[in-house]
């Protein structure tokens, strides 16, 4: 089977049955009085992996991270780090360091002193501390700012100090809580790549919590999608995007069109679905359901095509009216209203500067997609 997405990865310890997970959550539950923040969750993270916990606020991702750091204790279940059970190990004895969402820089200390803080706790000799601090400042390109206090730095610089401070002790695992949340868009994009390079060069395991799917997709080797204290899917960004395991995941990542229907039949890798309006779809994807079952067909907007005529080669096509057009420069998004009122979204790359006979508002149009464009989701 061809790999999903276009990126081939050579780093995939999760696919190797012999590989030992470095961090392991085993049936971890965390309750805050009545509220279940993390619900019977099991998860494996491998050495040198860039792992992202992605979910909306309140999904339990931060609680999971805080349990790994030692600030919260699981109500039940256990957390293993390199084979060692972390129960009862206080935060100051764990070989993990955390970069806080608020950065939590010590306001009364200079940049240098902030970075040196953890090393001083370990009673490292002075000369070594100075050397390590120098290395860290170089790593995050903040050498001229060593003597400044945090309030004299810009947001981006503070973020770097926080990063340098959490890396200074050379932890085995670095935990990052919304590391780029406080930065503006442009800086965030630059920093994403810097973090990836850093993680790769230092050979560390990164566990990052984020609510920003783009951030997770860009940086992570694997993503865990979380909702209501549970993990819904753990997979590479491409798998999550191209083969979501559930409607929630499909809907959560990117935008998607979902057609509800019933399974007609499945044979030779071809699934036939009749949707609620009576349209028939042929999809080259397994259904994992029995004929007559309720299923959902999910198709990404960029895999759909909008045209004035029905393309002769199209395996699936629907007729409707152009309802909205959003021109984004690199692409245009068409919202096509089907005759039964449903809106279908299609995005088309603007590969040519000018289009003859371009579609416009209220034109009749065909929206079509090939058989291998969609995913069938069962309940």
């Amino acid at each position, binding site marked *: 089977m061809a790999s999903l997405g276009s990126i081939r990865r050579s780093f995939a310890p999760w696919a190797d049955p012999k590989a030992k997970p470095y961090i392991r959550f085993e049936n971890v539950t965390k309750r805050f009085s009545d509220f279940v923040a993390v619900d019977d969750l099991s998860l494996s993270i491998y050495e040198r992996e860039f792992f992202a916990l992605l979910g909306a606020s309140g999904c339990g991702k931060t609680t999971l991270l805080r349990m790994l750091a030692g600030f919260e204790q699981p109500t039940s279940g256990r957390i293993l780090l390199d084979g060692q059970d972390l129960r009862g190990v*206080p935060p100051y004895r764990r070989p993990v360091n955390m970069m806080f*969402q608020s950065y939590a820089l010590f306001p*009364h200390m200079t940049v240098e002193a902030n970075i040196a803080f953890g090393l001083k706790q370990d009673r490292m000799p002075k000369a070594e501390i100075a050397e390590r601090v120098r290395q860290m400042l170089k790593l995050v390109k903040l050498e001229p700012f060593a003597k400044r206090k945090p309030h004299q730095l810009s947001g981006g610089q503070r973020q770097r100090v926080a990063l340098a401070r959490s890396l200074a002790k050379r932890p085995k695992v670095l935990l990052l809580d919304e590391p780029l949340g406080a930065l503006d868009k442009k800086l965030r994009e630059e920093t994403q790549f810097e973090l990836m390079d850093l993680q790769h060069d230092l050979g560390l395991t990164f566990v990052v919590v984020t609510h920003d799917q783009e951030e997770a997709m860009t940086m992570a080797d694997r993503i865990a999608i979380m909702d209501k204290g549970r993990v819904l899917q753990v997979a590479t960004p491409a798998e999550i995007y191209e083969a979501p395991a559930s409607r929630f995941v499909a809907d959560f990542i990117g935008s998607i069109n979902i057609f509800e229907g019933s399974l007609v039949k499945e044979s030779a890798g071809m699934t036939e679905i009749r949707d609620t309006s009576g349209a028939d779809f042929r999809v080259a994807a397994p259904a994992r359901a029995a004929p007559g079952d309720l299923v959902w067909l999910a198709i990404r907007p960029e895999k759909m095509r909008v045209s004035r005529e029905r393309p002769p080669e199209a395996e699936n096509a629907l007729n409707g009216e152009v309802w909205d057009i959003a021109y984004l420069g690199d692409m245009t998004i068409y919202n096509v209203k089907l005759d039964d009122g449903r809106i279908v979204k299609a995005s088309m790359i603007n590969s040519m500067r000018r289009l003859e006979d371009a579609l416009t508002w209220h034109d009749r149009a065909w929206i079509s997609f090939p058989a291998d464009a969609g995913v069938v989701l069962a309940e």
Partner: protein
Amino acid sequence: MAGTWGRFNITALVLGFAFLYLPILLLVIYSFNESRLVTVWAGFSTRWYVSLFSNRGLMDAAWVTARVAFISATVATVLGTMAAVALTRYTRFRGRLLFSGMVFAPLVMPEVITGLSLLLLFVAIGFDRGFMTVTLAHITFSMCFVAVVVQSRLVSFDRSLEEAAMDLGATPLRAFFQVTLPIILPAVISGWMLAFTLSLDDLVIASFTSGPGATTLPMKIYSQVRLGVTPEINAVCTILIGIVTLGVIAASVVNKRREVRRQREERLAFAG
């Protein structure tokens, strides 16, 4: 701006300040009175200040007061800070509301009751009244003031700073001393100053809990006034006012300087 300084506003301002400071001003003026009679002006003199320093009784009382204030303020600051930390940190323990109410109750408790109950306690356990008992009593009632001041600072303290310290290998105790305490220090210092001032001017509780040889200045002044106000008393009070005023001015200057420096540093940071 002329309109804002109307006659009404000026009158209100003058009246308000007169109400607050006229009695004190009179006291200060009369402390420089030549005459032995407090209410009759007979020319400027500093003789009462000179005679004050040779008045053993008053000087002893001043020394006792200073020591009591210093020791009780220091101990109350330690205890009050600990109480404040406990109350803001451990929000989930049973009976927290009751406990926090109990810490703050002495704020509104009539001093007579505090004094009397402490007296009963000292008598019951057979504690000889004197320097120790006054100091203990002052610790008791000023501790809650410190707790209030420090707690209000701790409420806005970012807990993740402490977590970051622990994450970097500091034990909870070291995290407190290296990160939390330096940050809340201004509140702790102002708590100490509050406790010091409260102890300095306390009369009621000291009267209940003091014993022979441990007469505080307010007690001494009060007992002398009952025998008739002497200009010496005015002189003592003027000195006290001077000390308190200096303290307040010093504290606000330090605060202001720090603020100005911080703003300048921030401007520099943006320029650089």
